[in-house]
């Protein structure tokens, strides 16, 4: 009881003394903490920018769907030199899609996707290089996305190879400027010179890695084949029930190996791509950047910490008599130790607070002046303050220990 009260009184006294000592040497304190300020500013700014980038990237990758596997001939983001292996693979086509739809028990939806650049026109308005995408009614369930007006493709569209089209918002804006969405449904357009009827409009999806996702036209895959040919390889988006992605991967592998007659001693001749691959490559890149930032920050903090240690040694030396007086009046060694530890932690934490503020401001400036994003996360702020206070404690411990070890008789006699 009195022990706790005494400890509390001593801690408060220590903070009071620390603030008093800092106020007594404003310039010195400011210079001392400058190293910490610079270190924390750097780290916070870099971390805020990287976290901002991460967030915007993750938001973009979300359009690929977290629960979806993409059956492809090619591996996404393949940076190694074995591209010819992928090139020589047999195309993926209808047999694979039919097998998945028929046999998979874990797939919630499976939609084919094949695409080509084409010209889309209405009257005298003509758009070149629009992504025309051949798919099925399960596209929304497999890939995500939503319809803003009208309807999506239905099974009948594919069965009868109808000339039905669902338009992305960029296409709508350019072909039907100022027209109400409902009024666009039912209109006729030309895709690669063939007439199509608009049956629905997609919600806006934004951009992914700099590519516009809304400059597209979705048509039934059967109609697409008539228009652009049947020989091209398709990609199949397969959505798993939540938490079943890993099992789905195993199941699809065995279905596809059987359909494609891959001998047991041969590797897969197809790839199951997923969203995570983008995140992994990306995180690998920013992880290295993180490492550099943290390394630079740590070095600066160490330099700042040495500055604090230096000034605390001076402070202990100057206040030798004060330490003697306090010891004579009943301060224990631990009391003196805590007093000086608190003082160095307070100097460092003030520097850390200032550095955090400056770092966040710098990140916001960068975000305003460049396309880079910046995110202010509580963890970054806690990191800045925590790191600097720990630096203060670590580098203040030796001076504080020296203060605590002073002999009271010697200290009182010190001139």
């Amino acid at each position: 009881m009195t022990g706790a009260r005494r400890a509390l009184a001593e801690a408060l006294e220590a903070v009071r003394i620390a603030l008093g000592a800092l106020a007594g040497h404003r310039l010195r304190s400011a210079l001392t903490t400058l190293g910490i300020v610079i270190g924390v500013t750097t780290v916070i700014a870099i971390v805020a920018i990287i976290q901002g980038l991460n967030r915007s990237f993750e938001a973009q990758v979300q359009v690929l769907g977290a629960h979806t596997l993409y059956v492809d001939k090619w591996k996404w983001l393949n940076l190694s030199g074995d591209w010819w292996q992928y090139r020589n693979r047999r195309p993926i086509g209808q047999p694979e899609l039919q097998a998945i739809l028929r046999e998979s028990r874990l797939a919630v939806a499976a939609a084919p996707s094949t695409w080509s650049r084409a010209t889309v026109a209405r009257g005298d308005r003509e758009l070149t290089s629009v992504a025309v995408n051949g798919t099925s009614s399960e596209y929304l369930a497999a890939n995500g996305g939503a319809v803003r007006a009208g309807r999506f493709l239905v099974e009948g569209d594919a069965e009868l190879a109808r000339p039905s089209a669902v338009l992305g918002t960029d296409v709508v804006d350019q072909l039907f400027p100022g027209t109400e969405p409902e009024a666009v449904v039912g209109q006729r357009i030309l895709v690669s010179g063939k007439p199509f009827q608009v049956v629905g409009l997609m919600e806006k999806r934004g951009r992914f890695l700099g590519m516009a996702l809304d400059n597209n036209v979705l048509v039934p895959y059967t109609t697409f084949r008539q228009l652009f040919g049947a020989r091209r390889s398709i990609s199949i988006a397969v959505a798993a029930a939540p938490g079943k992605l890993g099992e789905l991967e195993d199941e699809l592998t065995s279905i596809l190996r059987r359909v494609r007659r891959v001998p047991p001693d041969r590797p897969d001749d197809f790839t199951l791509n997923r969203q995570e691959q983008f995140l992994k490559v990306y995180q690998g890149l920013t992880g290295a950047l993180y490492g550099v930032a943290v390394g630079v920050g740590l070095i600066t903090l160490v330099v700042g910490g040495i500055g604090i240690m230096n000034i605390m040694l001076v402070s202990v030396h100057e206040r030798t008599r004060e330490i003697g007086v306090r010891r004579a009046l009943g301060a224990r060694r631990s009391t003196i130790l805590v007093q000086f530890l608190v003082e160095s932690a307070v100097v460092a934490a003030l520097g850390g607070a200032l550095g955090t503020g400056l770092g966040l401001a710098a990140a916001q400036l960068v975000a305003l002046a460049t396309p880079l994003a910046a995110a202010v996360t509580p963890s970054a702020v806690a990191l800045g303050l925590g790191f600097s206070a720990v630096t203060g404690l670590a580098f203040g411990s030796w001076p504080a220990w020296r203060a605590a070890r002073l002999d009271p008789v010697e200290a009182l006699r010190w001139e």
Partner: protein
Amino acid sequence: MISPTPEAPLLALAGITRLYQVGSETVRALDEVSFEVRRGEWLAVVGQSGSGKSTLMNILGCLDTPTAGTYRIDGRDVRGLEDHELADLRNRAIGFVFQTFQLLPRSTALANVELPLVYRGVPRRERRARAEGALRSVGLADRMHHRPNELSGGQRQRVAIARALVGEPALLLADEPTGNLDSATGDEIVRLFGELHQRGHTIILVTHEPRLAARCPRAIRLMDGHIVADGAGREVAALGGPQAVTA
């Protein structure tokens, strides 16, 4: 705490010896010093510099421990106490008054006086009330919020005395308390000690001035680490006169 019988001495020193190692030589600062101090006594310790009186003061104040011998405060042997136990003992049993006042320069008179109570864990409000009381009792009711550099030498020493008194210690230990004051102010401080003695405080005054020792009811003279006289202050001080000249 042990509750002592009225006759039991407040301080009891028996065979106190303190050795220092200075290079290869062993210095015997105190050699088999024994005496007792009763509750309520006002005692001067006199001697030339090098006589061992500073060493004695440090041991009496629990800032230092003897090499040999026993020192009991209120019946409690201080030998073998841990550093933090000595700190607590200083906090509760001893009130220090120093020659150079030893006030914290950036703190007000009130904050300086509160300090011993901070280290005792006394709640803030009570601490403040007791510090104000102590400052009033030394005649500084109107100087509580002044910093040391805004006070005269005599006032500073009064603050220091208030700080020594605030924790109601068993012993007031003053080291040359008038050494940095002019004679008129010094006399005031000595009168204040007289009043405190009248109020029942136990006071030990360490000084090299026979004039000061003469005003104490009892004095002990140290020389080369030995007690050479122990008696009425006036007599011991008079003894010191010629010796001081020859030394």
